[in-house]
């Protein structure tokens, strides 16, 4: 009886009032907790973004800070869209993104599918496979340069051992037609585990009873794979593709140290072009415009993709 009275009294006390008495209101506390993060992001991300937008309409050069800055309107954007080098860089980026994602998805999904068999020691070997993706892309790019050396490198030696082509002729980084593949190979080596890990989560999320039902219906393994495994793991595969796509579209560190964009400009992905324009040619206004275009492209693609992903999830 007494308990019930206490309970009803507690319920009757207006909640916000009770909290206010005890100190800061919840609303105040929420803003107190969230605003530092928002302020930091405004200062370090958003303010610079607006500054970059402003610069993209000028002819500013960071190495000549005392020169008069002229407003050039849309001239930078117009020049970028007509610039042959930019289009070549975009094609190089597309080649890189397409092949890395294709290879990583195929290999990564296969590996996950095999690991899902839960053979003995699978946890240990999974951890070993995961190691490359945790490493610094810059350091990875640098040491793959060593592995790719035509005479002394392990990669060239292994390839020549298998194929019989003299090791001196396997110039992965100096040959114009091989260089674009050199960055694809390293990226695939490094990030296949990432796709594998997400695919594995997808495979493990499929409830056992669906397979049991299929087994009762005498569906073949082949049929089970195409009508259960793949469609149910698809949202996870797409998530992995989204993350890898965004990351590889921005790719800079690994490629910069592995090839530096060379030979010539055969591996010059968008971020490397951007660095060359901004920090070597010091065309700050021009490169800001290019940066804005890249950002809008990533952002737009990511948005479209997230919508598609949600549709798949709802199915």
């Amino acid at each position, binding site marked *: 009886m007494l308990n019930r009275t206490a309970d009803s009294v*507690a319920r009757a006390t207006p909640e916000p009032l009770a909290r206010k008495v*005890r100190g*800061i209101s*919840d609303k105040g*506390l*929420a803003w107190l907790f*969230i605003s*530092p*993060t928002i302020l*930091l*992001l405004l200062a*370090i*991300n958003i303010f*610079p*973004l607006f*500054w*970059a937008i402003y610069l993209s309409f000028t002819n500013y050069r*960071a190495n000549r800070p005392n020169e008069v800055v002229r407003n050039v309107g849309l001239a930078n954007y117009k020049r970028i869209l007509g610039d042959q080098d930019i289009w070549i860089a975009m094609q190089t980026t597309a080649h890189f993104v397409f092949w890395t994602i294709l290879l990583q998805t195929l290999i990564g999904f296969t590996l996950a599918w*095999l*690991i899902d*068999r*839960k*053979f003995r*020691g699978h946890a240990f*070997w999974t*951890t*070993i496979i995961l*190691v490359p993706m*945790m490493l*610094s*892309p*810059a*350091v990875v790019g640098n*040491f*793959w340069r*060593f*592995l790719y*050396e035509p*005479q*002394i490198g*392990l990669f060239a030696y292994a390839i020549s051992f298998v194929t019989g082509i003299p*090791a001196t002729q396997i110039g992965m980084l100096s040959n114009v037609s091989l260089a674009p593949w050199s960055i694809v190979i390293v990226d695939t080596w490094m990030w*296949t585990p990432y796709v594998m*890990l*997400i695919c594995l989560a997808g495979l493990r999320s499929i409830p056992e009873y669906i397979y*049991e039902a299929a*087994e009762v219906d005498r569906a073949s393994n082949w049929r089970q794979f195409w009508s259960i495994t793949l469609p149910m793991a698809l949202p996870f595969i797409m*998530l992995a593709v989204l*993350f890898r796509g965004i990351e590889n579209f921005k790719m*800079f560190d690994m490629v*910069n140290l592995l090839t530096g964009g060379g030979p010539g400009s055969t591996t010059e992905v968008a*971020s490397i072009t951007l*660095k060359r324009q*901004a*920090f070597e040619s010091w065309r*700050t206004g021009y*490169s800001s415009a290019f*940066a804005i275009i*890249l*950002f809008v492209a990533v952002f737009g693609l990511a948005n479209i993709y997230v919508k598609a992903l949600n549709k798949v999830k709802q199915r």
Partner: protein
Amino acid sequence: MSLTSAHSVVAPSATSKRVAGTIIVLYALISIVPLLWIFATSFKTPPDSIAYPPKILFQPSLEGYCNLFSTRTRQTPEYINSLGPATGVCDETVRKRNMVIAGPSNFMPRFVNSLIIAFGSTFCAVFLGTLSAYGFSRFKVPLADDLLFFILSTRMMPPIAVAIPIYLMYRELGLSDTALGMILLYTAVNVSLAVWLLKGFIDEIPREYEEAAMIDGYTRLQAFWRTVLPQATTGIAATAIFCLIFAWNEYAFAALLTSGTAQTAPPFIPTIIGEGGQDWPAVAAGTTIFLVPILVFTILLRKQLLRGITFGAVRK
């Protein structure tokens, strides 16, 4: 688990397990070879490191590590003979190449910079991230979804694109090539990850705990401090390690915004050169020392890895 017998219907057969196991082990071994090769190279002498065919068996040497930590000058054999006996392994190794140690190299200061910047930014990002995550998790924040998306979207910008205005801003503010500047920048990059991950972890802690504490007379802040934080320790630790790894590995900002005093290890390691080209054993030694903490963290984190790399989107 009385259903185990039913499961056996769909359990993979012993043969398929064996085949799968073999392929996975092969893949793991091949994919780990580059790392083992770097580790082996760090114990080679410079001539061994560039031998053809590549040497799998070799006489181990500490020359790479000696070269990594020191700068050397070439001297005449007469001069070296006139010096007293060698004072340590490195001294001895270097003298065999007609050189003497001139002083410490820049590796240690760069390594220390990496530590300061990585730990400093991780602390700030996790601190801010925990507060915001709690705010988003427990309170009705107007436009919460938009704010969260805004926080995530700052991660989508290409680092070089961000670096252009940051470079100008830091030049004006005197933050170029300072540890403080790098800590601020890495905090801003990592805070998005921290908020998203920690929100997931805090969402999983039942609200009833705090409500019970508040009925007992705790204020909201006290309840947060005494009930939520202890419950979220695992999540906070995992998030901290992810932030640490990012800051430790980051290269683009470090290469463009630091040049001397605040330079971290990733832009420094590739610049280690010996006589006549890159000193590969020293580079390999630097790489090995740089990667060891990451290997330890990967093993510690393996259960939380999936969550971390997908910003909390996949939880298992």
